């Protein structure tokens, strides 16, 4: 993500969470967070539990986020950048603790709330937080496509809609290294047809969370669970057909390492006195072997990042 993409992403996030943007420029934004965004980003669980318990009017925090990548900001001179870095550190550290606000410099807006300055760039803590928040709050949806504008359907007619289960998968190939793939697939609950470009398709449509008028939903031929199972199996078939050279190589490394351990510990175990010394060495070998397994054993994880029900016009 370059600076522009980050900025677009962050602005969309702020809009989606209903935060109010006070001012913005091509390189920064000042924003008063919505309660939803504040809960997700400011790390104030105690404050929010206080608000929730007492019903007090929440006071959300205000930020000024700069989208200039620090490497570009540094062009203004190494001395300035060093100072900047030193200044940025106190902002970074408290985030790791449980007391977010302590020790942060808090410049004041004139007659306004305190504004916390932050750099937001790909790799920054703040953007990671926003990613995490998006992952949590963009998890499950039910959407309807806006009906086509009066084409072929009379005022009394009704457009038939089919339900689709859309699932976004992340597949991780892991050994001592790792690689990932994403799949935005969907399956028709009417026919069981699978669309491997489902996410791309629905992204182009105009969708609404409310059931539009003059629309009727067709009955499902497939239960949600069955549809999910079919989708998973289809993906699994695809994964099975992939190249497993990486796994074979990782397995080779694993066996190599285990053989090395065996060669090291076995003679020691054989020579050790019966009883405790022998057992201690055996335990050590077991521990080391488990570590090797943990490090090298090839495995694939398939996880559902998010998913939703999509009602789209048409039959099938």
């Amino acid at each position, binding site marked *: 993500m370059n600076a522009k993409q980050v900025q677009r*992403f962050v602005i969309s996030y702020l809009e*989606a*969470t209903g935060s109010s943007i006070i001012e913005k420029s091509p390189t920064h934004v000042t924003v008063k967070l919505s309660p939803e965004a504040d809960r997700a980003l400011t790390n104030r669980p105690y404050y929010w539990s206080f608000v929730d318990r007492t019903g007090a009017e929440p006071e959300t925090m205000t930020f000024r986020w700069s989208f200039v*990548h*620090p*490497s570009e*900001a540094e062009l203004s001179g190494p*001395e300035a950048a*060093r100072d900047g870095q*030193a200044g*940025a550190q106190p902002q*970074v*550290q408290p985030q*790791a*603790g449980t007391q977010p606000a302590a020790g942060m410099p808090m410049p004041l807006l004139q007659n306004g709330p305190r504004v916390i300055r932050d750099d937001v760039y*790909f*790799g920054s*803590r703040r953007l990671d937080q926003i*990613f*995490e928040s*998006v*992952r*949590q*709050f*963009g998890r*499950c*949806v*039910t959407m309807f496509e806006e009906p086509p504008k009066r084409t072929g359907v009379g005022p009394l007619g009704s457009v038939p809609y089919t339900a689709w289960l859309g699932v*976004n998968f*992340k597949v*991780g190939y*892991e050994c*001592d*290294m*790792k*690689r*990932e*793939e*994403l799949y935005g697939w969907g399956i028709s609950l009417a026919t069981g047809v699978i669309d491997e470009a489902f996410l791309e398709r629905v992204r182009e449509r105009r969708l609404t969370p409310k059931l539009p008028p003059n629309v009727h939903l067709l009955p499902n031929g497939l239960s*949600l*669970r069955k549809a999910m199972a079919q989708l*998973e199996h289809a993906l*699994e078939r695809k994964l*099975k057909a992939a190249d497993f050279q990486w*796994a074979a190589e990782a397995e080779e490394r694993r066996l190599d*390492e285990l053989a*090395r351990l065996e*060669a*090291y*510990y076995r003679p020691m175990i054989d020579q050790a006195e019966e009883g405790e010394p022998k057992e201690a060495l055996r335990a050590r070998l077991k521990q080391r072997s488990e*570590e090797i397994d*943990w*490090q*090298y054993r090839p495995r694939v*994880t*398939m*996880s559902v*990042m*998010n998913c939703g*029900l999509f009602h789209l016009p048409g039959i099938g």
Partner: protein
Amino acid sequence: MPIQPASQPSGTPAIQEDRLPQPAAEPDSAASSGSRSETPAAPDRAAQPARKLHPLVDLHVDRSAFEELERRIERNGPWDDWSLYQMAWEAEEARRVADFHELQCLRLLPGFTPLPHQTETARRVLYEMRGRAILADEVGLGKTIEAGLVLKEYLVRGLVRRALILVPASLVLQWVRELNGKFGIPAVAHKKMYHWEHDIVVASMDTAKREPHRSFLHGSEYDMLIIDEAHKLKNKKTGNYQFVSDLRKKYCLLLTATPVQNDLSELYNLITLLKPGQLGGEGEFAANFVVGRRVAKNEDKLQEALGQVMIRNRRSDGGLEFTKRTVTNVPLRLSPDEQALYDGVTQYVRQHAQAERGDLASMLSLVTLQREVCSSRDAVFLTLINLSKKIPPDSPLHARIWELVELIRSIQANTKAEATMKLVENIGEKVIVFTEYRATQEYLLRYFKEHGLSAVPYRGGMNRGKKDWMMDLFRRRAQVLVATEAGGEGINLQFCHHIVNFDLPWNPMRVEQRIGRVHRLGQTEDVRIFNLCTLGTIEEHILHLLHEKINMFETVIGELDEIVERIEREESLERRLAKMLLESADERELRSRIDGLGDALLQTRNQRQRE
């Protein structure tokens, strides 16, 4: 709630829980908003064990988001926002690790570009050593950066979530700062028991190995273990060694700047922590590689085996851009008063060296007296006073000592301090003045202050906070830093490029450490070094050895540490020099013996290069 590293993939908790005894609930679920239940249905997972995707590969499925969808359908909502839904995909896409091999962390590092040898080291650790390595770069080449790169890469790839970093107590905060500031890694310094619950913790070895921490750590598993100053783990009978060897870890980095390959059994122990059996069993190792304690055989094979677990970048490797060093010796004549003191002390030393023959410790302290006179009267005064306290009250020596003290009283000015003052004024920029003696340091600070020059002190005994404060004052306010020690790893003074050696240590390694604080990666200016040298004194001989014989100021002697260590196998350099000084009949003999020592150093270097 601790902020989760970006890298934690949604799928990992399900898998890690199978294996990791988690002390706390998954922070993920704690972070979710109160009303929505995010707990993955555990029984479900148990009912569907991992299945085979391939004879070698298990498939683990985490469908907790789908189960969530089912629950929400049952309750008719609540539904998430459509644009957040799409953004979740976008975020995953941006962070996706598309490739097994390409370094991901580089595009995530703000405002800092690692040097080529650092990136290359990270690459080798990741792809050749598979995350278990000894990083043994020479001082000043950035081992911490290399370790940070490796850790960041594994974090980004979601292969490491929990990491434990064990370092000497004095370096804890520095590591935390470096990881946070340079790498955006949310590391915390361990202070309280609950800090262990954080994913990435930096702690001192001494804390970690004590109860109750010890038991906690031995009951945990760490995706990554990093140990700084790992040469302290060379003896496998020590508590530290036992403690570390009982930790459970996946990846492991051991950092050391000390050339461990000089002692084979120590090296063997270190590697056994990392990869038991890498050098064969103990007996095998002895038979294949060891002749004497420090003498190896089958050197080629040994190097090959070492190369698989250890990386050692050297300054002399090339490819590293250092600026030039220029050296100016500033010869000075002592004032008559000072000369009188020097002669008085020299005479005293010679007389008593005869009397103390055999007692090396007191011989050394006598030589120290002579060195101190060359530095400042304050330094020698303190030592004389301490000396007189050790002598029985009725000894005639007291009178001798008080004579010397009288000589000190008559000294009105310090030739070297005046010369330094002039130097600093001419330079007009920031200068570090190094001295061996605390008393000289205090004198200089006073002297500079009286002459309107802003100066701050720096010494080893200061705590971390004070050191940082002094550094900061030096950078922003003061023109001069008066330092008694060059050590204290990781102090970077690249913003300054003038050094004054007010007096010289006798060990070339310590001289190199002084220069290395300034002449290091990141220094953009040529470095100017001034050596103050009082003529007709012991200093002249030392400067002759260091400068003319082994020319150590202008060129970086590669592997100086290893050379000195070899030379010192029998006896330390300081002792050798002290003996020469006391045993030589006259100046000529002394000069020729010192030359002999210089030749030995050079020879060792040549021998080392041939190897």
